[in-house]
């Protein structure tokens, strides 16, 4: 009876233990899986493209010339050709306010340009009206009401009031300006291109005096009729009508410096208008085989979107060019999905590098410039008269000739992330060619985020390789020495090295960045001669050991010989540091940094890959050392004895017997070291300059994936693109470590099988 009871108890204990162990095992797997899923869920939205959330249609009285809306897309305005303006609710379509620009009289609006809140309208009788439209928010009983404001700021005549010219309609207008200065280019029906500038000049007494300049640059255009340059892509077409440039579009940048004129011939003329009195044509380039029909800048006024009558859409940008007379030339950067009909309107986002294009046939496309993607294709099947892109880049407004207004609410949270922008070369604004660049945030709002992970992956690999180059030999040979040669009285070495592993990496990083980096910079030349000195000193030590009398060497002090080396090696290190200056003068003419720069063109960074290699090496060495040493110590003594008894030297035994037998463990030690180096954050963070450059050069820094996460997290708003890209970086780290560890384990098991039957 008693035995039955104890049997039952044993069974119970067995079962409990079994369940407990199973549960913890499953829980571990579950936690890892959950972590993986969590990270993945954070990354997943990056993969989703743009989508339409809602599509609403309202009726206006007629097709508008220009439309816009407030920031919240609650109130829209439409400017009609007859000079009347209507504000209406974007929720129910009801008209909130009507406004007529009395001053315009019977003039009809024929062209317009928009700059911030200013709407510059050109009329059929040569007038230019500047309208200021803005919205203010009023809070009443916790309710937000949006109040529209409108005022006419200026009304001028393009040709001037005092001359007798018959007024000509303004066909195209481009204008930019601020409180102090404004510049407007107009193209009139009679084919003239005029430049109107006004500037407030503050006199000594603080009184502003408005200075106006009017310049007719039509003659300039006529002079430039012979093509100055042409792109290879479009081919040179010399059969242009010699006497006329048919202007189809105008665009002016907010620096009030560069005016681009699109022509019927498919050409783009770049006019520098910095000097209002003396504009110069810098470049005339064929951008299309078909007439240019629309021009527009992207946010930042660097990339120029060009649409032609065939519906092709490209972006162009000024790129440094030595062949060009003024050092720059226009280059085609990105190509987007084309429309089926002529491109009539381009609306850039004021948030990011997205833009909307519309064609007269009713197709509307949403593009993102950096990623060279067309995100949405919309269609209204009627003639588009006006197009607007909401200020938060989350809505598109379009009016058609029948007086309908279409509103699309879109969700497009991460347009800048694609496989190509993450892992491919991208031609960014301000770059001379497509490149891998990581630069997530910039100083200005119009900054183009550069989110290539390639430099970071490169940095990770670079740091890992240099660290392993340093740590693997030292770790393995150190383990071999400690396990096979070291005198038993010195076995304390092992726990000491193991203690090193407990050193927080912050301390290693701190030491590396603040102490080691300046030190290495100071003694780098001596590091070059140091190996030679050490080899020489070891040779001397061996020689001294040989000629020393047998006395005192001790019969059994096997492994102690190495201690004799210590003073020699210390001497060598000290000697080479002392000779550093002399060597530097002799070999590098006084300054090795200068020499590096002159001879190899490399720049020496104080916090460089050597420093990281050292510091991270120190983090990795204890790992590799401990695991390898354990395995090597556990190689059966009988095998070592067998080898020694066969007359093999201890060294031969170590390499031929111990190392192969311990190789599975050594292999996994290296892999674990690899994992540590890949994921190491603090050391890389503190010991490099964290510059995301791609250069194998030993004396440059780099930025690793893990360190990048630490660097950028404070810059990354929750749920934003950068935030998710950082999660993607961690997913990459996670998956890499997972794959490496799994692979290491599989290989280790295979190797272990081979050596297991000892």
């Amino acid at each position: 009876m008693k035995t039955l009871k104890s049997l039952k108890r044993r069974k119970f204990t067995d079962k409990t233990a079994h369940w407990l162990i199973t549960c913890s095992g499953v829980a571990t797997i579950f936690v890892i899986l959950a972590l993986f899923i969590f990270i993945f869920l954070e990354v997943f939205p990056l993969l989703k493209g743009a989508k339409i959330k809602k599509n609403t249609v309202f009726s206006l009285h007629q097709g508008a010339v220009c439309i816009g809306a407030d920031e919240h897309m609650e109130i829209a305005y439409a400017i009609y050709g007859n000079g009347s303006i209507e504000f209406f609710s974007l929720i129910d379509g009801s008209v909130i306010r009507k406004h007529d620009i009395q001053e315009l009289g019977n003039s009809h609006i024929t062209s317009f340009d928009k700059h911030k809140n200013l709407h510059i309208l050109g009329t059929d009788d040569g007038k230019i009206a500047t309208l200021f439209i803005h919205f203010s928010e009023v809070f009443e009983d916790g309710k937000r009401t949006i109040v529209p404001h409108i005022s006419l700021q200026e009304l001028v005549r393009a040709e001037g009031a005092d001359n007798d010219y018959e007024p000509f309609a303004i066909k195209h207008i481009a204008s930019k300006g601020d409180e102090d200065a404004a510049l407007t280019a107009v193209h009139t029906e009679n084919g003239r291109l005029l430049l109107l500038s006004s500037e407030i000049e503050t006199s000594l007494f603080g009184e502003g005096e408005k200075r106006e300049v009017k310049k007719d640059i039509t003659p300039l255009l006529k002079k430039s009729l012979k093509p100055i340059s042409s792109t290879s892509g479009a081919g040179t077409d010399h059969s242009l009508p010699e006497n006329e440039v048919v202007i189809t579009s105008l665009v002016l940048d907010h620096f009030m410096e560069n005016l681009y004129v699109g022509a019927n011939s498919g050409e783009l003329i770049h006019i520098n208008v910095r000097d209002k009195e003396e504009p110069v044509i810098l470049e005339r380039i064929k951008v299309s085989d078909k007439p240019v029909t629309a021009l527009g800048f992207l946010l930042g006024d660097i990339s120029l979107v060009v649409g032609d009558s065939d519906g092709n859409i490209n972006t162009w940008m000024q790129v440094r060019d030595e062949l060009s007379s003024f050092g720059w030339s226009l280059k085609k950067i990105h190509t987007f999905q084309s429309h089926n009909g002529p491109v009539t309107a381009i609306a850039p986002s004021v948030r990011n590098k997205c833009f909307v294009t519309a064609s007269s046939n009713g197709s509307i496309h949403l593009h993102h410039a950096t990623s060279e993607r067309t995100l949405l294709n919309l269609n209204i099947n009627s003639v588009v008269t006006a197009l607007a892109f909401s200020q938060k880049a989350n809505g598109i407004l379009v009016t058609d000739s029948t007086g309908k207004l279409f509103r699309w609410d879109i969700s497009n949270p991460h347009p800048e992330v694609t496989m190509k922008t993450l892992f491919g070369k991208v031609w960014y604004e301000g770059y001379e060619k497509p490149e891998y660049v990581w630069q997530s945030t910039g100083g200005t709002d119009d900054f183009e985020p550069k989110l290539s992970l390639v430099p970071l992956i490169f940095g990770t690999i670079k740091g890992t390789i240099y660290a392993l180059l340093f740590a693997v030999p030292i770790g393995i040979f150190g383990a071999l020495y400690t396990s096979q040669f070291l005198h038993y009285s010195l076995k304390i070495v092992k726990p000491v090295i193991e203690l090193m592993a407990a050193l927080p990496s912050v301390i290693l990083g701190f030491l590396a960045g603040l102490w080691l980096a300046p030190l290495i910079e100071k003694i780098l030349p001596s590091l070059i001669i140091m190996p030679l000195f050490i080899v020489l000193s070891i040779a001397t030590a061996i020689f001294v050991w040989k000629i020393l009398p047998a006395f005192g060497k001790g019969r059994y002090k096997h492994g102690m010989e190495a201690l004799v080396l210590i003073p020699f090696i210390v001497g060598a290190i000290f000697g080479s540091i002392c000779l550093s200056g002399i060597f530097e003068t002799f070999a590098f003419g006084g300054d090795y940094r200068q020499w590096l720069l002159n001879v190899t063109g490399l720049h020496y960074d104080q916090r460089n890959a050597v420093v990281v290699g050292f510091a991270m090496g120190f983090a990795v060495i204890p790992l590799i050392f401990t695991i390898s040493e354990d395995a090597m110590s556990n190689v059966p003594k009988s095998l070592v004895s067998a080898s020694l008894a066969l007359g093999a030297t201890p060294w031969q035994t170590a390499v031929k017997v111990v190392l192969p037998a311990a190789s599975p463990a050594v292999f996994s030690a290296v892999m674990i070291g690899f994992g540590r180096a890949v994921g190491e954050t603090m050391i890389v963070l503190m010991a490099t300059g964290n510059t995301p450059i791609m250069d194998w050069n030993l004396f440059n820094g780099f930025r690793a994936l893990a360190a990048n996460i630490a660097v950028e997290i404070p810059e990354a708003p929750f749920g934003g693109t950068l935030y998710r890209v950082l999660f993607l970086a961690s997913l990459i780290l996670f998956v890499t470590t997972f794959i490496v560890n799994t692979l290491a384990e599989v290989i280790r098991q295979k190797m272990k099988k081979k050596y297991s039957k000892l």
Partner: protein
Amino acid sequence: MKKKSEPIVNIIDLNFYYGDTLALKGINFDISEKKITAFIGPSGCGKSTLIRCLNRMNDLIENVRIEGCIKIKGQDIYDPSMNITELRKRVGMVFQKPNPFPKTIYENVVYGPRVLGIKKKSLLDDICEKALTRAALWTEVKDRLHVSALEISGGQQQRVCIARAIAMEPEIVLLDEPCSALDPIATAKIEDMLVELKKDYTVVIVTHNMQQAARVSDFTGFFMMGELVEYDDTTELFTKPKKKKTEDYITGRFG
């Protein structure tokens, strides 16, 4: 009584300490060339210690001390000028438990020659065949030379170890209880082989099995508590022991 040949090893006043414990006390005797010399005695009496002194395997043990001298062909092997690896090439050793390397049979046998720097395949093949033939294993494994040495039977493994030792062409082969882990059939094979071996080599064997000593050896030393009690021609020692202790031991009154 067998004719005593030239002594190849002289052991003179040998004392051996493990730390402070005296494990061998005043050992004095000679080992004859091309004969089989057996060490018998109760366990712990120092047989292994003594045999390990002959190729300085004791050097691997921490904290040991030796006094007196051992001469092989007149040369003191504990002289500081002695090259230990050279000595071990001349004095091969086979251990109690078979300890083949986790490599193929072939690689096990040619390990020593490879360490010596022999690289020529044909030469190594020759050495391997000769050594395995001597170790009476050739016919059994010649088709399996490239099978792992860990995949053959214990008796075969031990003979691989013997082949591995004699591939070095040593002058002396030391065997420390080579059959203790083997079954009687494997033991018999090894004993037959030892008798063959002595034509070319001096063999020293430690055994706790008196029958084995009686069967294969020419001379036998009986050890007790670290002392050499009696050393004589094998037949002499087993039939007419001079010491009471020897007689007690071989007649099984203790041990």
